[in-house]
């Protein structure tokens, strides 16, 4: 017990600075700035695996560790879509998951956002549309931000989330 406590004392806080926003990731903008403001300061995310190969999940899981420190920004993962404001959807939407994804989107109270993660989420990736896959997440539910990459770096995912919760007005300020 004492060894860990000493280690906690010596190592100190290792959280890195959060990444900058990235407007390219934004796909759709449907909430005003004021609502995004309140959501932004206390965001609850519900992660949905719509058929991903778990590559993106590993990266998302990394967001919770001490370095990327999602919770430090006031953002936390929740168990039920009822409690959530942002749906983090990974993977191409498999036919079996299509209905489940729609029902989860329905179950989330407004105002809500959707962030698609990974190449599969953005474009359907290597699977595309087929008898087994409905392609990208946008084909099933409206997506606000799409973060490409297979799998995207945790910083990119964090940037996507932060972009989703900040209003588009600041686009002119940074390149």
């Amino acid at each position, binding site marked *: 017990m004492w060894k860990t406590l000493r280690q906690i004392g010596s190592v100190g806080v290792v959280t890195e600075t959060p990444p900058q926003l990235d407007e390219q990731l934004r796909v759709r903008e449907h909430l005003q700035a004021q609502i995004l403001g309140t959501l932004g300061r206390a965001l609850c995310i519900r992660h949905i695996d719509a058929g991903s190969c778990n590559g993106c999940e590993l990266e998302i899981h990394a967001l919770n560790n001490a370095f990327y420190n999602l919770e430090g920004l006031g953002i936390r993962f929740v168990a039920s879509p009822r409690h959530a404001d942002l749906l983090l959807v990974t993977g191409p939407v498999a036919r079996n998951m299509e209905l489940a994804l729609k029902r989860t989107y*329905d179950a989330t*109270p407004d105002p809500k956002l959707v962030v698609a993660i990974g190449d599969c989420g953005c474009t359907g990736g290597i699977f595309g549309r087929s008898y087994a896959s409905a392609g990208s997440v946008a084909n099933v539910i409206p997506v606000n931000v799409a973060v490409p990459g297979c799998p995207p770096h945790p910083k990119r995912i964090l940037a996507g989330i932060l972009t989703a919760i900040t209003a588009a007005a600041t686009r002119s300020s940074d390149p």
Partner: protein
Amino acid sequence: MIQALWLPGPLLLTQLAAAAIASLLVLAVLGVFLARHPLGSRFVYGACALVCAALAGLALLALLDPSPTPSQIRLAVGLPLGQTLLALDALSAAFAVIVNVTSAIVSVGAIGYGAHARDPQRVVPFYPAFIAGMNLVLLAQDAFSFLVGWEFMSLASWALVVSEDRSEGNRYAGLVYVIMAAAGALTLLFAFGILAGTDGGYSFAEMRQSAAFGPAALVLVLALIGAGSKAGLVPLHAWLPLAHPAAPSHVSALMSGVMTKVAVYGFMRIVFDLAGPPSWWWSVPVLVVAGVTAFLGVLHALMEHDLKRLLAYHTVENIGIIFIGLGLALAFEASGMGAAAALALVAAVFHVFNHSLFKSLLFLGSGAILNATGERDMEHLGGLIHRMPVTAVTFLVGCVAISALPPFNGFVSEWLTFQAILLSPELPQWIPRLLVPAIGATLACSAALAAACFVKAFGSTFLGRPRSQVAIAARETDLWLRSAMVAFASLCLLAGVLPGWVMDALRGVSDVLVGARLDSQAAQPWLKVAPISADRGAYGGLLVFAMIAIAAAATALIARRVASHALRRAPAWDCGFPDPSPATQYTSGSFAQPIRRVFGSLVFRAREHVEMPKPGAAGAARLRVDMHDTVWELFYAPVIRLVDVLAGHLTKLQFLTIRKYLMLVFATLILLLIIIGTWR
């Protein structure tokens, strides 16, 4: 204010009460003829309600007026050379109020419910007789009329239990009930025999003066067995969960809510009033039996999925709580702590009143469900809150009250019992002093389990999605039953919010039985109750209820003004699974599974067996839970086997030749002569 009214003298009260009992008996006889068409049974139930209400009023007047010596009336009927004495002293008046208030409201409910019973002729005549029997027991001031009333009550309720004798279960329940009732009455007979002493004075007054024939402790044991079997103390409770559900619901409301209270009255009358000053160790068996009863009763209730059997087993638990109060009173009285004994006694009688209210409410509720769905098994109910709103609200009030939760009356009597338990360090002897905290722990545990039991009961019947077609097709019950349930619910709230008044009314009882009384609660500010002293512990029922109401209203108001009003109906969230069948939700069996695994594996030797189909076979896997009813196996099964074996041998006696019979006669004669000869 009361003095201003013309007050009927105590003698007139008793006469009116006796007249009321007589009118009930007349009603019973009338019932035989009127029961043919529904209007007749409605009339009988209505008349019952009126007579019971009158009796309740009389008893209340007798309870409140401070006349020390109750006036007796003598009837010529009775033992040869003896008379029947009837009177309304403080103890009988208190219990008469409890019995008749509940009977009146249940009868009002029965007007609607009883009308469309399958064959009313079997129920309507015995219903008034049952109430008359109970009132006779309360009014009796001598052993003969007490036992006549007792037996009359048992037989009338037996007739009601077997009124629906199509199902095998009911007949078996009737058989077990009759045997237990007869055994109980027999032990009471012996108890009165001992109390009557050598000069055979059978009136209570004589019994109080004369020295008991045998050891007074024997009277306690006999009363514990006799009254305990009727009330439902653990080893003798087996008939209660069989008989009470078998009767029609409004009758099982009376049996559970009222008849068990008459049994408690019998115990209190014999042990506290007639058996003279208790010695200290009397409280040990009472407390131990009561603790075991409370714990075992609620555990059995948790394992049930038949609503009425659940309620019946729960009556056993509440009787345990009442007897814990009585045990404490005995312990305190034996060591001369009058105020503590009065507190424990008032706690017990208060719980008697509370239990008669919410148990009758819950049984009427189960009757309403039975009428609406024809189903008693909670595994086939569910979602009735949408279809039976009034029943749901009143049933919820009953569940909260019975789980002893603050704003309602169940909590007050539990709080008083705990206050009594907290006085136990002053007990001089070692054993009760260490026994009382253990009993306190059992009481706390059974209260918590009761809350779990009634979350299960309410949850699986009223909440969730309907699990069967009958549950979908359910409709609200008729107006009479609803009004009765609303009356009970409001009484529960009233007794919970204004406990001071009830405690003041019961001071007479503790005066009669333990010779000490609590100081009046009217003086306390905010209508709160502080039995011993304000800084020792106080409970403001009205205060707590007002605070909760104001807080809830304030939160709702703020939420309405500040929060967004957007509200959307959407399918329930179950991981996006498309439209699951109602079978996926928790049933009463699965709700009790954690508690069964924690407590049941010890108490009922509960084992769960999962039978998986052989690989490749398409059969369904099955979960089978087998439990052993330990009390039945340890206590009843051996007795039944013994009786069976003896009966086997004795039947041979039926088929002897005359000569062999003569041989038996001759042998006994010789035996007796030898005894006489050698006994000098």
